[in-house]
């Protein structure tokens, strides 16, 4: 009865291994002390479009998305090096203000533009070091940049930054008018508990894990920032990467993880309370927003389960270690020599299994759980930019309403025949007409930005998830291979019992 066998898993997958380029350098826990040459991942695409864009002049104003007339476009999404100059006039004429009139051709162009996002900038965050003592201590990280872009002062350089500096960067970027509609990558969360432990001492396992988790998260954060075409152009980003002494960021109090979420949700509430409901003639935004919300919810659920897995694996790890010791003791007291030996060997196998479980738990956490955490926050940021668009719309509507009131006031004044007041009224009308035009243009611009950003984001997300999950599975595969070795070594020992 106890000889029941397991069901043989059907081999429905045909083994067809194709080595593929690795992810863009989301790091493993043991990369802290590596040399600069190992800091960067191997994501090199055919040609750099930013080389063409980056003439050192940062245009704060992304009003005209298609002003990048010299960006490389390619009809082949897999990255051929064919250069195709988009014609300026074509862009100008297809640029229509209202989302309702968004032509399919423009959308195609957006997608093609996304396909050629390649940036010759690599960043890495390494060497966490505790600075100072006691409760004022903090951790400083080395931020290294490797680039061929002329807008930077050199090709390889590094600076030291602390956590609040990263938060400060986010703070600056998130309030820029010019970046409204952009998906600004959110930084990792603050942790008072984690940091307090580190201030006390950086040597115990939980502090080591905390620091490594944070280092890896900061690296991913920066990598996302620099791979964003608009953000890379931003002088604050450049300053963050290059400047030796960065003034301390002071407004980061609000930016705990909970604070960030609160910000997003407050914006959502404001939007929900809007009295004038938007009439979306283009359902793209509504549909997409719904998709984003659903996905965020799904990822949260998944994250909870992966966290549970991490904990159970850690538990398994501990219990296996304890069992291994117990088994060794049993082997010692067994008076049949061969059996005693076999039990000791089994205890060693269990010890090795503990090691495997430890590594698997780390993989579960650093590769899978953190990926999910990142994207839950990123989806929050996506929701944020949809809200920014709504607020822009609201501003436009309010301006129109004000303009209307001004016109009515002018009409009344005409009747009442008060020439000086009339003049003022006319001036105000002109002013508000300009504003209405401006706000409408802003709204359209943000709409375009949001669409472009979302497309880009979805591509990045797909790439990220695929590469990370593949990495996760590869770690699992290696685990199994080692497991097989352990048991193959043990089997003859068991058979030798007599």
């Amino acid at each position, binding site marked *: 009865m106890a000889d029941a066998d*397991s069901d043989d898993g059907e081999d429905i997958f045909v083994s067809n291994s194709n080595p593929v380029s690795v992810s863009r350098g989301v790091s493993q826990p043991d990369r802290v002390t590596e040399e600069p040459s190992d800091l960067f991942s191997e994501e090199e695409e055919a040609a750099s479009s930013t080389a063409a864009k980056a003439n050192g002049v940062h245009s704060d104003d992304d009003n005209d998305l298609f002003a990048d007339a010299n960006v490389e476009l390619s009809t082949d999404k897999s990255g051929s090096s064919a250069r195709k100059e988009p014609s300026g006039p074509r862009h100008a004429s297809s640029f229509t203000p209202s989302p309702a009139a968004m032509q399919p051709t423009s959308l195609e162009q957006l997608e093609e533009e996304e396909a050629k996002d390649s940036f010759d900038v690599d960043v890495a965050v390494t060497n966490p070091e505790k600075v100072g003592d006691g409760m004022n201590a903090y951790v400083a990280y080395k931020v290294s940049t490797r680039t061929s872009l002329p807008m930077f002062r050199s090709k390889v350089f590094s600076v030291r930054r602390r956590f609040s500096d990263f938060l400060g960067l986010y703070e600056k970027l998130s309030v820029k008018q010019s970046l409204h509609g952009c998906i600004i990558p959110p930084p990792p969360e603050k942790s008072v508990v984690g940091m307090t432990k580190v201030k006390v001492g950086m040597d115990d396992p939980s502090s080591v894990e905390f620091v490594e988790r944070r280092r890896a998260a900061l690296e991913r954060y920066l990598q996302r920032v620099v791979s964003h075409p608009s953000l890379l152009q931003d002088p604050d980003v450049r300053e963050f990467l290059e400047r030796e002494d960065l003034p301390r960021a002071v407004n980061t109090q609000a930016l705990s993880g909970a604070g960030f979420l609160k910000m997003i949700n407050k914006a959502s509430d404001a939007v929900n309370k809007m009295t004038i409901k938007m009439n979306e003639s283009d359902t793209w935004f509504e549909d997409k927003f719904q998709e984003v919300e659903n996905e965020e919810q799904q990822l949260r659920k998944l994250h909870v389960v*992966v966290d549970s897995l991490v904990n159970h694996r850690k*538990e*398994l790890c501990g219990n296996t270690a304890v069992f291994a010791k117990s088994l060794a003791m049993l082997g010692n007291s067994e008076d049949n020599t061969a059996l005693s030996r076999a039990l000791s060997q089994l205890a060693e196998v269990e010890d090795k299994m503990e090691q495997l479980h430890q590594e698997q738990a780390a993989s579960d956490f650093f590769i899978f759980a953190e990926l999910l955490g990142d994207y839950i926050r990123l989806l929050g940021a996506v929701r944020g930019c949809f809200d920014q668009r709504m607020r822009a719309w609201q501003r436009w509507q309010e301006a129109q309403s004000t303009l209307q009131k001004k016109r009515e006031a002018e009409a009344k004044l005409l009747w009442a025949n008060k020439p000086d007041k009339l003049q003022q009224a006319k001036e105000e009308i002109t002013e508000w007409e300009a504003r209405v035009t401006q706000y409408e243009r802003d709204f359209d611009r943000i709409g375009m930005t949001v669409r472009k950003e979302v497309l880009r984001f979805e591509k990045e997300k*797909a790439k990220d998830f695929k590469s990370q999950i593949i990495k996760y599975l590869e770690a699992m595969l290696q685990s199994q291979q080692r497991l097989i070795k352990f048991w193959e070594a043990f*089997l003859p020992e068991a058979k030798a019992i007599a």
Partner: protein
Amino acid sequence: SAVLNVDLQTDAMLQVDISDALSERDKVKFTVHTKSTLPNFKQNEFSVVRQHEEFIWLHDSFVENEEYAGYIIPPAPPRPDFDASREKLQKLGEGEGSMTKEEFTKMKQELEAEYLAIFKKTVAMHEVFLCRVAAHPVLRKDLNFHVFLEYNQDLSVRGKNKKEKLEDFFKNVVKSADGVLVAGVKDVDDFFEHEKTFLLEYHNRVKDASAKSDRMIRSHKNAADDINRIASSLYTLGTQDSTDLCKFFLKVSELFEKTRKIEARIAADEDLKLADLLKYYLRESQAAKDLLYRRSRALVDYENANKALDKARAKNRDVLQAETSQQLCCHKFEKISESAKQELIDFKTRRVAAFRKNLVELAELELKHAKGNLQLLQGCLGILKGNT
């Protein structure tokens, strides 16, 4: 049988097994099936239905029989315990509203599998007990055993009355007090001295290893459950749309479905081959300790009888009575010692054989499962990387 698969010498054929079992609300009914050429049975092949308490009655009757003082009494099977499983099933029923139909069906299937595994185990343990008795040259001839096997009516032994329960309680108290006695008195016979030292230590370590193996396997099951939920979650994500990424999620979900089945099997196999093995030898080593205790008691009785005889001779009173008593004690002690020695040697043989069998099977199963997992992962990665 599960743990014990060693061929012991048998005179006439007596084969016992549990051919069927039925789990009802609060009891399990085992169908005990016997094949025998022994003349004292009415037929050569027959079956009866027994419940757990009747097994316990049989075991206790062996323990209480003075004639069997010199044997290791096969340990009683543990009570069938479906409480935890039933509780989980109930919780699942209560939470039915809060999960999707797929999730519910999945979890229900798993609980049913768990229930089935516990059921199989309890059947195996009851069967092992009977097989051990049937294989023992002396116990197999026991009248109560034959009644147990053949009498097709209820043995009416369920629920000991209060008086009996109290007697049991005191018996155990006395046993443990005497445990100190056993440990203290050094034996003249080297063999038994060694066995005493060995068994005391071995028993404690097996107990420790058994408890810790249980905890380890439980963590393993928990991890497998999480992988199951991850698979479901990925499936939901994958069905949101038909993009490349969604297809990717669906493939990975499929992989996790398969690997977690393997992980669950690994935990189940570790349970059967390792945890159950340790549990069984925990009980057997206790039975061996009980034998040593009975021998020590007999030795103490013998020594006391010697002292009483000396006293009687000195006073020249009741000498014949004292002589008879002393001779009885001597005979009892020698009889126990002789059979105990053989029993302890057999115990070692059985133990080594059982460990060998189970450890070999454990290693083979672990290898099989690891290779299965590896194949799944290689296949899946091949497809996933090919598409990226």
